[in-house]
C-alpha cells in the first residue's frame, strides 16, 4: 500500500514541477528557439528579461510590493491588538469567524458602491484600507496567544505594566514566529488578489503585478519568453520570502494543527 502512495507522490511531484520547470526554461530560451520550437537549438539568452524590463513590470511590481507590505503590517498590528483583547475576554469571536468566511471579493458589489461614496475607487488606498483587519490573522494569532500562560501576563500586571506595554513587550516577542508565518500567508493572499484590483482600480499607473501579467498575456499572447520572464520576475519576492523563512513556517503549521 505504501508503495502505491509513493508512486502517486512521485507522479504528483512531476505534475507540480513540470509547469515550474517549463516556465524557468522558457524564460531563458532565445526568441527564435521558441518561435520555431527547435529543441536542438538549446540556447541561453537574457533577452526575454530585457524585453520584460522594457514592458514596465517594475512599476507594477513596486505597486504590488507596496500595497501588500503596508496591508500586512497593518493586519499584524491590528490583529495582535484584537487577538489580545479577545483573550482578555472581549466577546467578539463569532463576528470574526463570520468575517473569516466572507472575503472582500464576495462583497464586491456593495463595496463598489461604498467606495464610490467614500471616493476611494481608482486609488491606492482602496487596495490597502479595506484589508487592514484580517479575520484570518486575528484567528491565527488568537490560537497562539492562548498558549501563553496566564501567569506571565499576571506577573507583568503586578509589576504595574499597562496593557499596551504588556502587549508590545511581553506578548508580541513571544508570538514572533506565529506573526511571521501568519504574515507570510496573508502577504501571499493579498499579493494574489486579481478580481478585486481589476474591478476597483482602472488607472494604468496603479496596476498590480497580477493585472499587469494578465494584460501582458492579452497583448502579447505569442511572446512566450517575455511572458515567462515577466512571470518569474513577479514571483521572486514571494519565493524569496518563503525560502528564507521556510523552516519557521512549517514549525508554526505543526504546532497549530497538531492533535
Amino acid at each position, binding site marked *: 500500500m505504501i508503495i502505491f502512495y509513493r508512486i502517486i507522490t512521485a507522479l504528483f511531484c512531476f505534475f507540480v514541477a513540470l509547469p515550474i520547470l517549463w516556465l524557468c526554461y522558457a524564460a531563458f530560451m532565445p526568441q527564435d528557439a521558441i518561435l520555431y520550437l527547435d529543441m536542438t537549438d538549446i540556447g541561453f539568452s537574457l533577452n526575454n528579461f530585457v524585453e520584460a524590463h522594457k514592458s514596465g513590470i517594475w512599476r507594477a511590481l513596486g505597486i504590488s510590493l507596496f500595497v501588500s507590505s503596508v496591508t500586512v503590517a497593518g493586519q499584524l498590528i491590528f490583529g495582535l491588538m484584537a487577538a489580545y483583547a479577545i483573550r482578555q475576554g472581549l466577546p467578539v469571536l463569532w463576528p470574526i*469567524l463570520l468575517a473569516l468566511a466572507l472575503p472582500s471579493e464576495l462583497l464586491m458589489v456593495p463595496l463598489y458602491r461604498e467606495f464610490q461614496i467614500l471616493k476611494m475607487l481608482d486609488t491606492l488606498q482602496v487596495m490597502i*484600507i479595506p484589508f487592514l483587519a484580517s479575520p484570518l490573522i486575528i484567528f491565527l494569532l488568537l490560537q497562539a496567544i492562548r498558549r501563553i500562560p496566564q501567569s506571565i501576563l499576571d506577573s507583568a500586571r503586578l509589576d504595574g505594566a499597562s496593557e499596551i506595554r504588556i502587549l508590545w513587550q511581553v506578548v508580541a516577542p513571544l508570538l514572533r514566529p506565529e506573526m511571521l508565518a501568519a504574515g507570510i500567508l496573508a502577504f501571499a493572499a493579498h499579493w494574489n488578489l486579481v478580481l478585486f484590483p481589476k474591478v476597483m482600480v482602472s488607472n494604468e499607473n496603479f496596476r498590480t503585478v497580477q493585472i499587469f501579467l494578465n494584460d501582458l498575456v492579452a497583448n502579447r499572447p505569442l511572446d512566450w519568453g517575455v511572458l515567462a520572464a515577466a512571470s518569474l520576475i513577479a*514571483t521572486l519576492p514571494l519565493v524569496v520570502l518563503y525560502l528564507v523563512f521556510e523552516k519557521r513556517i512549517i514549525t508554526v*503549521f505543526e504546532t497549530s494543527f497538531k492533535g
Partner: protein
Amino acid sequence: MQSRAAHWLGLPALALLTLFVFIPLVSVLRFAVLDWSPTGSSYVGFANFHRLLNDPQLVSSLKITLFFALMTLPSFLWLSRSIALAIEGTPPERLIKVLLFMPSLITIAGSSIAWYLLYQPDFGFIYELTGFALPWSSTPWAALVYVVMFTLWQSVGYGVLVVSAALKGVPESAKEAARIDGATENQIRHFIVSPLLRPTLAFLSIIGGILSIQSYTAVFLLTKGGPFGSSSVIGYYLYETSFKFFQLGYGATITILILIITLIVAALQARVLGLGMARGQDFS
C-alpha cells in the same frame, strides 16, 4: 485574571470589519431591489429576485460549482492524505513539501501563464511536442477539468502540510503499543493513524468547500468561464454580471444567494474550528 482595560484594543479591527464587511453585508439587501448601473439606479421591487428564480445561466453556474467541488474536494483530500502518509519520516520529506508548496507562492497570474505556455491547445508546449490538441478550449467538460487540475496543482501542497502536521501529532506510544501487539504497518495506518486524522480531514474539507465557492480567480485567469459558459462557476458569474455587463442590482441579488450558501458552509466551519479550539485549550 482578565483585564477589561485591554478590550478597547479590539476597536480598530472591529471598526474596520464593520465598515468593510458588516455594512456591505447589510447594504447588499438594499441594492438588490434596484435596477442599478454605474450611471444611475431606480427602484424595481422584487424584479431581481424574480429574475434570480428564472435564470437558466444561474442554475447552470450553480451546477458547475457543484461539479467543481465534487471533482476537487475528494481528490484534494485523498492526495493530501496519501502524499503526507507516503513521505512521513522519509529523507526527501522536507524537499517534497517545499516543492508542493511552491505553486501557492508563484504569483497566481504567473502560474496561469506557466500553464498557458505548457497546455495551451494551439501552440502550447505539449501540443508542439506531441501534436495532440488538448481539449480545454473546445470541449465544455474539459475546461472545468482544466480548472480543477490547476486548483489541485495549487493547493495540494497546503493540504499535505496540514495532514503532515497532524501525523506528527499521533502519539508514538500508540503506534508502539500496536506494534508490540503484532500489528502490521498497514494495520497501524488503518486502525490507529486514519481515525486520528479524521478531524484534520474534516477541517480541510470545510476549507476546500469554501475555496470551491471562491474558485472564480482561477476561472478568470484560465478560461474566462468558457467555452460557452461551461466553466463559469457561481463566483465568476457574479463578476461577469456585475462588472462586465454592469447589472449591479442583479449582481447584489446573486451576492445574497452566494452569501446564504457561504454562511451555511461557514456554520459548519465554525463548528469544526470551534471543536479544534476547545481541544487546543485542553492541551495548554
